[in-house]
């Protein structure tokens, strides 16, 4: 029995003449995610894409799990391919979906006939297949309104597909189809979620992390690499830039008033990120800021950091509560890594009483003590770039 995966396009089905660009990207992303599982042939038929394994030994459940994390599909299902003959379809429905049918109490059959040359019309297919299944599984009852289990039969040009219900896909747009943006990743819970959300809108993600050795450790860097790999299950390959930030932090600490440490530090992060983004063709910055979560994320503070750069700053979790962010983080599998304790090792640079309502003119005055160009140039020369690859579940 031959199995395939049917992938239902999401939003891209609504695209017009440029739809094939999106589809090409989607196929490419699928093939990337299926590396290591096996090679597949992809064919398109209207809003459905068919992934056909090129090798019988491929584990189809693994493939489905991998494709569930590819943005661009509304839903997906495993189906079995049979010849376009009623007897074969009936047999396949009973064998392929037998386990689910044995567990169900009620069922129905839905049929779609794309090949109008097939002798039976859709309602007739339903009746014939349903009748056969009733004879094979006498405990079942038909319920066309609220069945426990629905059997789908699709008669296509070359073959018929028999499948059970569709599973939800990851939704969104194919990663890379909307351009590229640079994610500021700290090691906490919010930034991977922000990266995930923007990847969902079709952005390719690069990441920037600020490290301050010896105040932060190698463990902290490894943690950020792990977070990129985990976010990569959805976002794909992520290029991570680790900026040596110690000098900047020490200068701020030595020369600026304590209550502005954090805000000035964040402004420098934005400035450095912007420069790196422009060098790497990124059209926006992404942060995991959420209004009022901490002192540096009050509306006043965001106002001060936002004007530090020209590029648009995307803040997808801006209106989410912490527990909502945590829920996404758990679902996408970054939470456990995010809560490893390395990140906050160093409280040396955190002010005791940060300003929660900083005014821009005050911040700018406080920054006067710093040689901005030299500090940024020094940081830009101190960047290590690591390409991270998606980590399988």
């Amino acid at each position, binding site marked *: 029995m031959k199995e395939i995966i049917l992938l239902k396009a999401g939003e891209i089905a609504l695209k017009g003449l440029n739809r094939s660009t999106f589809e090409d990207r989607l196929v490419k992303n699928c093939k990337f995610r299926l590396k290591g599982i096996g090679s597949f042939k992809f064919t398109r038929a209207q809003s459905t894409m068919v992934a056909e394994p090129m090798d019988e030994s491929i584990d189809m459940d693994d493939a489905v799990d991998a494709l569930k994390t590819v943005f661009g599909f509304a839903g997906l299902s495993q189906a079995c391919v049979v010849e376009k003959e009623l007897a074969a379809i009936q047999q396949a429905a009973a064998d392929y979906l037998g386990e689910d049918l044995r567990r169900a109490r009620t069922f129905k059959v839905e049929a779609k006939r794309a090949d109008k040359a097939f002798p039976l019309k859709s309602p007739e297919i339903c009746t014939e297949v349903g009748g056969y299944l009733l004879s094979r599984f006498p405990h079942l009852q038909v319920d066309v309104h609220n069945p426990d289990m629905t059997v789908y039969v699709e008669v296509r040009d070359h073959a018929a597909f028999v499948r059970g219900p569709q599973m939800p896909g990851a939704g969104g747009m194919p990663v890379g189809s909307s351009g590229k943006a640079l994610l500021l990743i700290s090691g906490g819970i919010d930034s991977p979620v922000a990266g995930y959300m923007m990847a969902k809108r079709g952005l390719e993600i690069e990441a920037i992390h600020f490290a301050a050795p*010896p105040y932060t450790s190698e463990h902290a860097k490894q943690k950020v690499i792990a977070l990129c790999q985990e976010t990569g299950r959805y976002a794909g390959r992520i290029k991570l830039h680790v900026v040596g930030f110690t000098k900047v932090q020490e200068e701020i600490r030595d020369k600026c008033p304590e209550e502005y440490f954090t805000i000035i530090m964040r402004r420098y992060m934005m400035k450095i990120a912007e420069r790196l983004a422009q060098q790497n063709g990124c059209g926006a910055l992404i942060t995991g800021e959420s209004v009022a979560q901490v002192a540096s994320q009050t509306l006043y503070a965001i106002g001060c950091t936002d004007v530090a750069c020209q590029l648009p700053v995307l803040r997808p979790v801006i209106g989410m509560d912490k527990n909502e962010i945590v829920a996404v983080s758990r679902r996408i599998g970054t939470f456990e890594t995010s809560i490893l304790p390395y990140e906050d090792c160093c409280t040396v640079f955190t002010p005791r009483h940060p300003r929660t309502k900083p005014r821009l003119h005050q911040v700018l005055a406080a920054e006067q003590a710093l040689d901005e160009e030299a500090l940024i140039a020094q940081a830009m020369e101190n960047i290590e770039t690591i390409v991270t690859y998606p980590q399988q579940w």
Partner: protein
Amino acid sequence: MVQEIYLDNSATTQVDGRVVDYIAQVMRESYGNPSSLYDMGAHSQRLLREAAASVAGLIGGRGENLCFTSGGTESNNWAVFGTAHAKRRRGRRIVTTAFEHSSILEPFKRLGEEGFEPVLVSPDSQGNIAPEDILAQVTPDTILVSFMLVNNEVGSVLDYQAIAARVKEIAPHATVHCDAVQAFGKLPIKIEKTDIDLLSMSGHKIHAPKGIGALYIKKGTRIDPLIYGGAQQGGLRPGTESLPLACGMGYAARLRGERLREDYQAVAALRAYTLERLKELPGIVLNSPENAFPYILNLSVEGIRSETMLHHLERERIYVSSASACTKGAASHVLAAMGLPAGRIDSALRLSFNAGITTEDIDRFIGQLRLGMETLARARS
């Protein structure tokens, strides 16, 4: 790249090259299961007995009383749970110290939840515990007294012989357990001449691999197994023995035995030298007691957080341990039990030596420590 200076030998040690070779040889040539009835099994059984005799020999004991375990944590867990469960009808009181390793403290906590009465004896601000302090807590119905021979963070040495002897006078039915993981192979121990019943050891602190340890069980001591299964090691610690690791620990124990006194002298001299050099640096406070175990030296660097200094030294490939963890509330329970102020706990570093460290290494360490103290941003007090 500069040569590393590994000053964290209480965390673990480099495996001795001769031990590596021997383990590889055992893996290649003596792979028979010690329980198999044919000659290959008998050969493995003989190697295992020899290894047990070597390990026991280092503490003046007999190989037949030694069980191999997966390491110090298992040995400690086994000693605590195994004793408490075997003697539950004799009493509920179990006594230990507040600065034990977590592999003692956590089982005690658990036994408290099971209805036992755990008692923790605190050290003084110097990190010492006098025998009287422990004995004051021992009652006639006490079933277990467990204490470290040497504390792993500050290096306090307990008068184990006096404690064990007096415990037996007050509570003849009590089992005396000694966690000797740090002292093993470094202090001369004659277990059969003391009143200690159980003694925990670990392989990777004496240049054997991680994953192997032992519990010495003096003849006649009642103890329940921690895990159940086959009849290996008298049914007390079932599971096919890890022959290569056991042989490695045995060989490492023999090598330690040959150099125990010599190395002790060398390390004592090294510690004295380190203390002398540290006097040059203002703002260093010692947390180790004066008469401490020479292999361990705990100090605080005023105003500089442990992890910051640790990572600063790491960049010069000098490796020390931070006694405190980064998350608040998870700071060193040992220093906290000594009642030290938070600032001192947050800035504590532990050096732990081996005999291969030279005075030049210490000079380099002092130089980098000085540099760190001059350049690193300080925590606000």
